[in-house]
């Protein structure tokens, strides 16, 4: 039995006067436990609407959503909260709550009318803190933490809610790079080790493609694509959905291509590996496409010496040695201005 089964679902908003604004129509999707799925698409394509509909916060316009085999239209909000938990984009601002307090709130659908915590609840909270690796700051107050730490707390809270499915709406949008990667890593581990299903929307396509088992791609026009990230690149969906103006997706290298005005070609020889890779990147950045053969406008030779690397840059007429790329690039740029 799948965690999510979506049957001919149409999502959108009801308007005041009997009208409907359909965002995506006739969706058929499914998700199994242990899967990590990233929902990607341009702004305003309906990612949040879809997530809200799946969590039952927004009623579907048409069609059905089944969570663990149960139709969300026919279950109470408390039963639903036992099947799916949610993490939102904005970090929570709350005073005088410890990390442990926040996690204990995740037990809301399981506790009695007073909300008192039994031993079982405490065990669940501690296990959740351990799974995210934040037990060591369980006693700290939420307002003392950084945004990234706070988002980890919210994920631990979702775990304490003990639902098979966890939905996250752009959980890393406000975080810097290392935290983004760490959170994705945590989520990946949760899906694999705890057999949970994790569905998250993100704008970080690169990270999503490296982590997700499947991508759900929504486009502006309401079209929807489902598949392994690699398939979606190979059949051109990614470049089609994400191309804006001059920015295009480079399917050969797997990243977005920034338009650079080409100035000429560069031939790079010498040392291989990381030095060659970053030298190529630097030349590309200032508009010199690397090529293997002569004749090229610029020839860069990466020469290893005993203790360091030197770049020997040859242009027609001049040769100069550099101990770093900063000076080398600067030299090429000023040189061209003169010519």
């Amino acid at each position, binding site marked *: 039995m799948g965690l999510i089964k979506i049957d001919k679902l149409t999502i959108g908003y009801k308007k005041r006067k009997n009208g409907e604004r359909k965002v995506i129509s006739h969706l058929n999707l499914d998700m199994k436990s242990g899967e990590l799925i990233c929902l990607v698409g341009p702004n305003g394509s309906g990612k949040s609407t879809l997530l809200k509909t799946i969590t039952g916060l927004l009623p579907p316009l048409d069609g059905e959503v089944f969570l663990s085999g149960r139709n969300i239209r026919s279950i109470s909000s408390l039963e639903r909260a036992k099947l799916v938990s949610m993490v*939102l984009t904005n970090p*929570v601002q709350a005073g005088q709550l*410890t990390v442990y*307090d926040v996690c204990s*709130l995740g037990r809301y659908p399981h506790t009695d009318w007073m909300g008192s915590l039994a031993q079982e609840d405490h065990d669940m909270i501690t296990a959740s803190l351990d799974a995210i690796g934040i037990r060591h700051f369980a006693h700290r107050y939420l307002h003392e933490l950084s945004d990234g730490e706070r988002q980890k707390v919210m994920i631990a809270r979702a775990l304490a809610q003990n639902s098979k499915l966890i939905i996250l709406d752009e959980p890393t949008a406000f975080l810097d790079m290392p935290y983004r990667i760490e959170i994705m890593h945590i989520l990946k581990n949760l899906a694999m080790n705890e057999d949970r299903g994790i569905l998250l929307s993100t704008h970080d396509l690169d990270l999503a493609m490296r982590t997700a088992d499947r991508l759900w791609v929504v486009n502006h026009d309401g079209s929807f694509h489902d598949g392994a990230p690699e398939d979606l690149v190979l059949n051109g969906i990614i470049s089609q959905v994400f191309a804006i103006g001059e920015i295009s997706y480079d399917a050969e290298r797997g990243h977005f291509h920034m338009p650079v005005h080409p100035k000429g070609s560069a031939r790079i020889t010498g040392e291989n590996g990381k030095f060659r890779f970053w030298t190529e990147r630097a030349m590309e950045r200032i508009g010199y496409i690397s090529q293997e053969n002569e004749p090229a406008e610029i020839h860069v030779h990466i020469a290893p010496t005993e203790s360091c690397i030197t770049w020997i840059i040859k242009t027609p007429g001049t040769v100069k040695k550099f101990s770093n790329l900063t000076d080398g690039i600067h030299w090429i740029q000023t040189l061209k201005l003169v010519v």
Partner: protein
Amino acid sequence: MKYPISMILSGHFNMRITGIMIFLLLSLIILFFLELVLGSVAIPYPEIVRILTGQGSSHDSWIMIIYNFRLPKAMVGLCAGACLAIAGLFMQTLFRNPLAGPDVLGLSAGAGLGVAIVVLSAGTAGASSILGNLGFFGSVGIAIAASFGSGLVLLMILAVSKRVQNSMTLLILGLMFGYTANSFISILMHFALAERIQAYTIWSFGSFGGATWDQIQVLVLFAVLGLIYSISLIKHLNVLLLGDQYAESMGLDLIRTRNKIFIITAVLSGVVTAFCGPIGFIGISVPHLCRALFATANHCILIPACILLGACLALTADIIASVPGYSITLPLNAITSLIGAPVVIWIIFSKSRNGMEVSV
């Protein structure tokens, strides 16, 4: 490293919290007795104990003063402080706004309008005594008018609440209801007679005195029922601390819970406003004091704490307002703010020095 749960879980009943609770309870008992002892007529302390224990007293007038003036006043102050503090706590949590208080929904403005209509426009004029002028109404009439006014505002808010998903919108709507009610009051005052305006102004100063035992029974009944009912809201209030959306995602029925909170707030603050007039400041300041004092946002602790501290603050304000030893009294409303504001300012400054800011 393993921390004991009592340390991690803020608001878990530990030694510190129990200690502060006991301290507050003792302070409340002392303040309650001070309220009986202090007043313009000096009654010796042993006499008060004898009167309270039903052994009578050498002066009949003393028995009268205690039973008909000081004891009712102390009871009303106790209930009013507790109710207003709880109402303020609920509003701050629901709107997650540290500036919210019992009056943000426009309830006390509604009550004020009800009273203004009765006091300012009833009958035309000429009589010497203001109270006599109100005729059959009197203080009971004022209480009924106030309940009516705040009840009407509550009904409007509940009607709107069904259609509004965002609680912040309701906060703004409540404030707008309040402004509208206040502008009607201004218009009424513009056309009213001077002595009626004075009567209204006296009501708006707020006072714990003047209630009869029948009225006190009503007040105590509503207060006790409301406070007991609020225990059932603890769990929902706690989860609302993370915001409406998180609360809903964890299974909270937002609109139903919100309406429950509105009704309980309306009952608690409405009944107090009806009997005592608009008492400012206690509702907004006590929850902050309690959060700072107990270092928790857990309503399981905050509710009893607000009841105790609210009652203490109300009684202290009333004792100061009655200016012990002199035969004058000051407007209660002025005193609650006068002693409350410096305390809150001090809390804000001392907290922000520790890197903590006042929040809900």
